[in-house]
């Protein structure tokens, strides 16, 4: 059974059971290991990818649900919001162990794509699904604000 979808802009064909979660398809079969496994039940957010730009938890998304659609993983993140988030993450030294941060970045990029000037409450709501056991939360908040400011002052494309 071949499932066809686009991953990071490339057409891919996966000969897998359509019930296999997208997480394990990209990790084990496309060798895209930037997306992480943390809980398998959409409780921790480490597996966050974009489905046409919108954050989804790939650990509970079967391949069947993304057939014919366009998926972006952390490796392929190239939107202005994504780049601003990553630069802010580096500037503020957000990561500690770093294992949750792919998911954090993907969730933050998705937030800023639709809400370019999020309040603290907006950030809390959008990011509460992403657990960080190192508790880098104070810096995550600051980095999202910084990325928003960068995007806000950027010249239009």
């Amino acid at each position, binding site marked *: 059974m071949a499932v066809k979808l686009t991953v990071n802009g490339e057409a891919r064909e996966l000969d897998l059971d359509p019930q296999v979660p997208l997480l394990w398809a990209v990790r084990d079969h496309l060798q895209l290991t930037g997306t992480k496994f*943390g809980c398998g039940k959409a*409780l921790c957010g480490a597996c966050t990818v974009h489905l046409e730009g919108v954050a989804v938890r790939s650990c509970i998304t079967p391949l069947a649900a993304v057939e014919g659609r366009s998926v972006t993983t952390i490796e392929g993140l190239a939107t202005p919001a994504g780049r601003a988030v990553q630069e802010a993450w*580096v500037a503020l030294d957000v990561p500690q162990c*770093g294992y949750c941060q792919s998911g954090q970045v993907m969730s933050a990029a998705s937030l800023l794509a639709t809400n370019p000037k999020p309040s603290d409450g907006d950030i809390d709501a959008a990011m509460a699904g992403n657990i*960080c056991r190192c508790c880098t939360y104070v810096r995550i908040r600051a980095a999202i604000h910084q990325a928003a400011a960068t995007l806000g002052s950027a010249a239009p494309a």
Partner: protein
Amino acid sequence: MYFRLIADAAALAVPASELTRREFIKFTTLAGSGLTLGLLLPGCGKGAGGGGTTGAAGQPLAMPFVRIAPDNTVTVISKHLEAGQGVWTGLPAIVAEELDAAWEQMRVESAPAKVPTYGNLALDPKGSVQLTGGSTAVANSWEQLRRAGATARAMLVAAAAEQWSVAATEITVSEGVVAHQGRGLKASFGELAGAAATIPVPANVALKDPATFRIVGREKLPRLDSRAKSSGKQQFAIDVMLPGMMTAVVMRPPRFGGKVVQIDADKAKAVPGVVDVVQIPRGVAVVASDMWSAKKGREALSVTWDDSLAEKRSTADLLKEYRALARAAQAPTAHAHGDVDTALAHAVKRVEGEFEFPYLAHATMEPLTAVCRLGADQCEIWAGCQFQTGDQATAAAITGLKPEQVTINTLAAGGTFGRRATPTSDYISEVVSIAKATGGKYPVRLIWTREDDITGGRYRPMKYHRISAGIGRDGKVAYRQRVVGQSIMAGTPFEAAFMKNGIDPTAVEGHAGDQYDFAHVHVSWSRADVGVPVLWWRSVGHTHMAFSKEVMVDELARAAGVDPVAFRLSSLANHPRHVGVLKLAAEKAGWDQPFSKKGGRGRGVAVHESFGSVVAQVAEVTVDGDKLSVDRVVCAVDCGIAVTPDVVKAQMQSGIGYGLSAALYGKVTLTGGHVDQNNFDGYRVLRINEMPRVVEVYIVPSTNPPSGVGEPGTPPIAPAVANAVRAASGIRLRTLPFDLTAARRAPA
């Protein structure tokens, strides 16, 4: 410091009859390994660490702790695991300082598993144990890496002096450039590396005057791993891909101590992708071509267990036993000075408190994962390895190889908080056992699911405290404490070295007798024996000892009618570093300023020393009905010289969040010996909306050598919050995780 005892244990000739065969091999190999290993590096001849190459251009300078490449990168070889605590930035900062390198040219990689070169000097000055823990990384590396940087610098300068025919004293080094101002000559480190490699390694080198430090102590030094970790490029053990690699998951006994009786693997083996089902000491492994198939295979696996020796009690049963032990007349004494019974009998003010602490899971974001490739005379492991020496010995014992034949590739770990170092190398032992049981036919990747992690044991022990304290007519304080709970060390190879007079030091560390000038202190510990495996968890015994101590000290202050900060200061004359952080935190929190309690607000303070550092925290909370929110935390830390201040601040924020998570939600409970929680729904942890909006960190200026920061931020937060809740609402929190509803109803 008790970590020295780990090495003592390793060196003891413990009678073989008292150890299992595997443990005996582990001891003899620990004692014998590494001491005869040379420091041989490729191309080594002259000198002890790097000289001997032809010195041709294009050669690196390769020393045990630093490698300077012709491309002008300076790579620090880190003997310590990077698990988030920032050693991959801190250790290179020390080298870069003495080397006079430019920060931009610094890189870092993990050291091989090799003692004594890479031993933790805080555990054993002879370097017999390679382990990351006890917040010792920067502290034990400080002298060593300063020398390593200064030595490499001296060799670069000597090489330049030779090349330029000038005196070494006329040469300057700055930002990675070696120069002779007078003759207008300069060269990069990369250009000189090959020549430097021919210079005999100097025995003595001068170290810098700390007043001239430019990198150590710099307010903002970018982490070396931020970019990789922000772009999905940082590799963890779970990301390792080897040709032909299979993935395994293990079915472990539902109760601790259960044993396999019967395996029915037919359905599991029929699942597409499954290649084998094998029994290992811990349970039954399902091996498959990928993770999803392995997981599906395990779901189809049927195993019958013998629970006759398994732990079958429930948390309620344990609590009942612990309460009884807390009241028992006798228990081994951990600390005694003064005459606490008489003093308490005559106290004019008395306060009492009983405290309950649950089992806690570490719940690292990266579940335990390791990869093993086993050959006839070589065992290669990839893991976020925290205890290389122990894991190497365990792998050797399982495979029948020598430790030198076990290669450990230490990767970045997705958090540890202590979980990845166990006395039995638990998950490393599993992956090696699976590789052995499958005949080394393919590399094996072992992944623990989140359920495996939460239910798999190795928790912070459940604890019970019973405390009576009082103030005498003479104003002197009496403090009597009984602690009840499991020992982390008992039943492990470390028992003989660690436990004296029936006391496990990790069960009572941080007690009031060590931290305050109280006139009369008695601490006793009743050891509980439970079949639940326990382990050190970020700040270990301090996690519970700091809580009850700082809550009771607040009660004493209240009884005396004295401000909580002032009361503490009056008992800290012999603890100047405690005074320093307490005053700084109080000042920055505006403790002397009026604080409005309108809207249910309150603030509380706590101060505690652990792992060589002292931390004070002021927490501001809002109690709305039975809802608690922690709004602001002001933290002051004395960690000696702050090598990387921004990392110190990050570690305080991290320790605060980690401790708060446990205070608000952390709880592993048992019903009939089965663990009740299994994922982040049942085992709740702190999320971004619950993290205090403001966490300010202030570092006390110090010229002392660096002490630890990985753990010391954790002990004070729970008591500071509890004290704030008391101030805000009158609610006394004595049980963790906090339940304001239940606490309101509890008798005073």
